[in-house]
């Protein structure tokens, strides 16, 4: 996260770290059910085998495992069938864990939006992750407050790319607060008036975040995928 701050342990209990063998942290992820997480499809490019991954929950400092930490292996990876790696469209995947997590105050699922629940432009939401800070990689989980940007306004920042309805933009024109490499798959969450945090975006792509080219970050629009996500979980829980 660029322009964010170190977050307090336990503040984002749905944030998880997707790790791959010796490389350690590769992408962020989000807990949505006791056995299910969401992340970006592009996190699995060239690494689609479930057995090479582990998921770490309840952690703040990647370098110092906490007593609240829970680790699970990956049972299966479900990439969105329309995922297009060339234009990074439909950048979402569902991961089934080998075993359910134990719900604690440090490890809890986030709410998914209803399929008609859209987040309005100019709403302020939060992004979190262990991605690049612009000059180094952090050990501690970072958080940043970003503003939701309309699709039309967002398109004006990206001449060579099409912003589709599967994408959601958030951030600032000046790029002051933005997600960066290593934050992919992590959450963009907004708080509802009932004090419930709802997942509206998954960190997906943007300009090279510490270059001269700035602008908002682009997130997978979770509202667009809710029906697909619920059906995939249903099929795999009750039918297969």
């Amino acid at each position: 996260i660029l322009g964010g701050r170190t977050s307090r342990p336990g503040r984002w209990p749905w944030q998880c770290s997707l790790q791959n063998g010796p490389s350690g942290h590769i992408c962020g992820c989000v807990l949505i059910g006791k056995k299910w997480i969401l992340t970006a499809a592009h996190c699995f490019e060239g690494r689609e085998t479930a057995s090479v991954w582990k998921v770490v929950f309840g952690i703040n400092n990647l370098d110092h495992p906490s007593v609240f930490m829970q680790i699970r292996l990956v049972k299966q990876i479900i990439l969105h069938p329309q995922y297009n790696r060339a234009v990074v469209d439909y950048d979402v995947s569902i991961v089934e864990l080998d075993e359910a997590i134990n719900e604690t105050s440090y490890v809890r699922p986030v709410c998914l939006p209803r399929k008609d629940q859209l987040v309005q432009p100019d709403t302020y939401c939060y992004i979190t992750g262990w991605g690049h800070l612009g000059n180094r990689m952090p050990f501690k989980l970072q958080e940043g407050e970003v503003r939701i940007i309309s699709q039309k306004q967002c398109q004006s920042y990206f001449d060579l790319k099409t912003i589709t309805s599967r994408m959601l933009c958030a951030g600032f024109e000046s790029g002051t607060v933005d997600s960066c490499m290593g934050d992919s798959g992590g959450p963009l969450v907004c708080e509802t008036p009932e004090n419930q945090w709802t997942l509206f975006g998954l960190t997906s792509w943007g300009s090279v975040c510490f270059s001269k080219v700035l602008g908002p970050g682009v997130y997978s629009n979770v509202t667009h995928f809710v029906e697909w996500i619920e059906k995939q979980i249903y099929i795999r829980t009750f039918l297969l």
Partner: protein
Amino acid sequence: CIDASCSEPCNGSPYCENHTNGTNCSLCEPITLELCLNLPYNHTVYPNYLGHKTQKEASTSWESSLFPALVQTNCYKYLMFFACTILVPKCDSESNQRIPPCRSLCEHSKEHCESVLGIVGLQWPEDTDCSQFPEENSANETCLLPDEAVEECSPSHFKCKSGRCVLVSRKCDGHADCEDDSDEKNCGCSERGLWECPVSKLCIKHTMICDGFSDCLDNADETNCSTCKINELVCANYDCVHRNLWCDGKRDCADSSDEWNCVALSESSSSLSLLTIHKHASEYLVCADDWQEELSQQACKQIGLGGPPVTQIMEDNDQSHHRKWLRLNSDWRNKNTSALQSLLVKGKFCQSRSKISLLCTREDCGRRPAARMSKR
């Protein structure tokens, strides 16, 4: 390459098999960088003249954003050709070596376009020192010059009638970007090889029609996608499946859509909702005979709600005899399935004449622990 193994990036290179020292072992590769797909050559080799080690690195570089933006200013006819010769250098198929642009091409590009960049406070890319490229009449080195057939615009650009290149995203956007308005002419979907949504007039690719995902605002791209027989229902992927197979607990549509939304809660006069099952394309109530609490739990879970549920057995006062019932299969415990609809069978009558009502609760989510207070 002293033994059979090679270190990166030479691994797999035919040079290694010759037991050479493994230098200069990059091979020609097909050009994939979209900006440069209309060059008079098809193969490139890395590193390029900007120091990028791969095409992926080149595609996300500052220069691959800069040149397409600059080419729109019409500062030099062959700017895009020059940009591509340094981003994806031509590869000589015999030597696997890169072929540079000629010095004059570099100098003309810089001479015409550097000042345009200066107006917006940007600098000409530092790595493009023209003296590194050979003169065109150099005896021992070949170099690239554009010929008449060279495309002035990249595939990401539209060529105005005037010859200027404007970004494809600006074509048919309601604003004239070409001096002659040619980017706003012939803007129908069919002229652009696309399909037009009947109401919203949105243009979509033909591959998006009947792909299971709604792209037109009114879903027109996903209608009339199958012709099922009268005794069949259409799956989400437009296969046709017999009505009797719908919600039988087994997957009959390839995408499992025949087993979606089989269990539901319907409106009721009390605070609890009636448990209804959609089976064989009809709606059924569930008879309370032999009902077990664990089945209520199962029903809530299948609807996507949590528990523990509240179950109420309600007497059915409907005397019309048109009520459709499902009964619990006497052998349900031995069934190797977790789908509730497969545990229920059609019954002639419901002995208790009572139906199942449920109250399922939504599992908690999205809550953070309260912030700890500390006295100051």
